[in-house]
């Protein structure tokens, strides 16, 4: 790990003002300290944000749920109102990382975690995300875990957060605080596909903080769940995953929310799958036909072609289980 200056502040304005080029915020530290040890990230200054005010709390409000960005994954996963109203979020969190890491990692940090692409994490290899212009080692290399949606000739790395998949499915937003003020942004818009600038993963400006997550009120999200398919049953990143919420009227699908993980360069919202399901009766045929639309335009690579099939099966199983067809 390279030397850095450590600072801590109890004022959001001060924390933002004192951050600049070469500085980074630290909350739980589970991503950044790992990457600093690998010398993938080398901030010269670390600003500890754990004492900042107004960035905690989990509250059900008129317009939905508010989660302070400093709340820990484990506390959010276990929050009774969240478990009752948005089980998909709790399940996505509990299927992430380990109990220890969930006690450490903040919600804001979870959304900003970096890809698990082995080349990004290995400073001895080219990687456009880590070192723009150096090339992508994964396209012709080890790409079994990589994306099939939203890729470019510059980068095919997946976004690793399970939480983000659940939040994108539910149309959640993040509140961002910068030197001049605040802005609220849909999480789906917050994340960027790599294009020619894979080093830019989201719309966060230098020195800007995620202060809270807002999830719109959606009473029927009580019927929601997260299905995660992985090489190991626990403590492993997704090969494929699906976050689904179902609004059923008898066996007719009144509405649905759906996003998938493990296959996209960002959490992947499936608008066309949703359109294909709304108004239809929930049965195996409808679901299989809708799931096909998820892989429209998919680009498989030599080692991850199986994901084209696996993600469809993941979607089918998630909907079938949730709809009680299983």
């Amino acid at each position: 790990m390279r030397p850095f200056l450590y600072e801590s502040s109890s004022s959001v304005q001060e924390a933002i003002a004192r951050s600049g080029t070469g500085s980074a915020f630290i909350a739980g530290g589970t991503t950044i300290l790992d990457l600093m040890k690998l010398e993938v990230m080398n901030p010269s200054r670390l600003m500890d944000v754990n004492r900042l005010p107004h960035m905690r709390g989990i509250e059900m409000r008129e317009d939905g749920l508010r989660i302070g960005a400093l709340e820990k994954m484990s506390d959010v996963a276990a929050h009774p109102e969240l478990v009752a109203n948005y089980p998909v979020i709790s399940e996505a969190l509990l299927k992430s990382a380990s109990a220890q890491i969930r006690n450490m990692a903040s919600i804001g940090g979870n959304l900003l975690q970096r890809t698990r692409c082995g080349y990004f994490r290995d400073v001895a290899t080219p990687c456009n995300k880590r070192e723009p212009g150096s090339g992508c080692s994964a396209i012709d290399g080890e790409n079994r875990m990589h994306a099939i949606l939203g890729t470019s000739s510059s980068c095919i790395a997946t976004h690793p957060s399970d939480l983000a998949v659940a939040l994108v499915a539910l149309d959640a937003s993040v509140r961002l605080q910068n030197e001049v003020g605040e802005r609220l942004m849909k999480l789906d818009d917050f994340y960027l596909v790599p294009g020619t600038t894979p080093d830019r993963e989201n719309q966060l400006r230098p020195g800007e903080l995620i202060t809270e997550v807002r999830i719109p009120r959606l009473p029927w999200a009580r019927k929601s769940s997260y299905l995660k398919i992985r090489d190991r049953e626990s403590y492993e990143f997704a090969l494929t995953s699906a976050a689904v919420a179902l609004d059923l009227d008898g066996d007719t699908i009144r509405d649905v929310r759906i996003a998938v993980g493990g296959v996209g360069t960002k959490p992947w919202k499936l608008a066309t799958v949703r359109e294909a399901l709304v108004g239809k009766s929930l049965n195996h045929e409808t679901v299989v036909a809708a799931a096909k639309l998820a892989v429209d335009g998919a680009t498989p690579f030599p080692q991850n072609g199986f994901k084209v099939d696996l993600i469809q099966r993941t979607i089918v199983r998630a909907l079938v289980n949730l709809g009680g067809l299983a």
Partner: protein
Amino acid sequence: MELPADCEPDRQEGSSRREFIRRLAAVSAGLTVAAPLGRGAAVTQESLPKSPPATADGPQGWTEINLTVNGNSERLVVDPRVTLLDALRDRLELIGTKKGCDRGACGACTVHLDGRRVLSCLTLAVMAQGKEITTIEGLAKADQLHPVQAAFIECDGFQCGYCTPGQIMSAVACINEGHTSSDLEIREFMSGNLCRCGAYPNIVDAIKVAAAKMKGGVN
């Protein structure tokens, strides 16, 4: 403290595992057996400064910190890069906490911060200030083993023992969190602690035994 008979010999020798490793280090360093063992090759107090080395410019960014470890207040001067794990092991000589992967993947370094299990390898020492840090050394009450420690011995919940302090710290938290309703739940909530020897079935048994005792108010 009641130990099964096969756990006794080491202790009767009056020689700790660390002493044994020190002797091994001495031998492998090419010293003759007649040379002073133990301290001779040991990590001496001089090599474990509690304050930064003096340099012309002074150390950049070194910070004085206070840690509360197993109820004791400890003052250290550290480079901000020092993890809680390294502060415990190299500065406070609490070497029960183990360094496995040092990347947050194996759980060997698990300690409690304010009663919650965390990874000390991904925690900066400077950020652990103001919290109650509990390590494996702080679990037993005098010579009375914690029920989880006793259960690991009773159920043979280890082979080489390297992951064991982390397993035990994690298990204590797992039980306190109430995640022991089934083998499946124990396995899920202990998945952050890897055991290369594969002692998992016995670890699960130990947790069940300890959980039952702790519910009965033994702890």
